[in-house]
């Protein structure tokens, strides 16, 4: 099972900066192993973020997003104590959801 995400959500004036680190190989499908065989692509395809349960953004990624991905975005209208939750799903169907509180 994939490790937990590190999510930080910090209120700056009327915007909340959300920074997310995800634990994932993001294998490109371009690399070869030591025996010369192509390592199959394994990467996060879908990302979704919610504020208090309501989806505020989604994303689709290709295999060129770096290993252990980082993502940052700005949410409007959040208050301290609100819940930010982030989910991802990869091309093999694995998924993960974590959440944090706006501070």
């Amino acid at each position, binding site marked *: 099972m994939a490790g*937990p995400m590190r999510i930080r959500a910090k209120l700056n004036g009327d*915007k909340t900066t959300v920074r997310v680190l995800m634990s994932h190989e*993001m294998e*490109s499908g*371009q690399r070869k192993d030591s025996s010369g065989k192509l390592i199959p692509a394994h990467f996060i*395809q*879908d990302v*979704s973020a*919610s*504020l208090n349960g*309501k*989806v*505020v*953004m*989604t*994303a*689709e*990624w*290709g*295999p*060129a*997003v*770096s*290993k252990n*991905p*980082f*993502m*940052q*975005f*700005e*949410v*409007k*209208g959040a208050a301290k104590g609100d819940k930010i*939750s982030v*989910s991802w*799903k990869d091309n093999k169907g694995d*998924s*993960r*959801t*974590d*959440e*944090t*509180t706006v*501070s």
Partner: protein
Amino acid sequence: MQTRRETLKQSAVVAGLVASTGLFPQQAAAYEQAAFSAKNLADVAKALGASAPQESNAVSIGGPDIAENGAVVPLKASSTLAGVKRMLILVEKNPAALVAMFNMTDAVEADFSTRAKMGQSSDVFAVAIMSDGRALYAKKEVKVTLGGCGG
């Protein structure tokens, strides 16, 4: 103040919720495979049903002039325009140009950052796909350098 431990415990609960409610509304529309297979900006825009891309001052691309390592290149796509539907990040010389696509709602700014792999020095693009189908972009060059030792 929530500790990491609590976060971990809660995540299991939340995971259950995701399974039942489905936090991936975009999956109603399938993953944009065609866009993620396209070789250049024009083809990505076409695959997403947008018009021919035009350069715009209202879109900006952030990134380093030189990346010390092509495995991790921090890139930021933003726009000051109203009516942005999607923000894209592209690396022109990658095997497939499109790196990431961020879908907007009214609750977020058109301002997204991530980190991309780059095989070589290349132009990188931020593209705003507007609700009316226009594709507006900004670009900059990022040089990827060779690292030390090489052994």
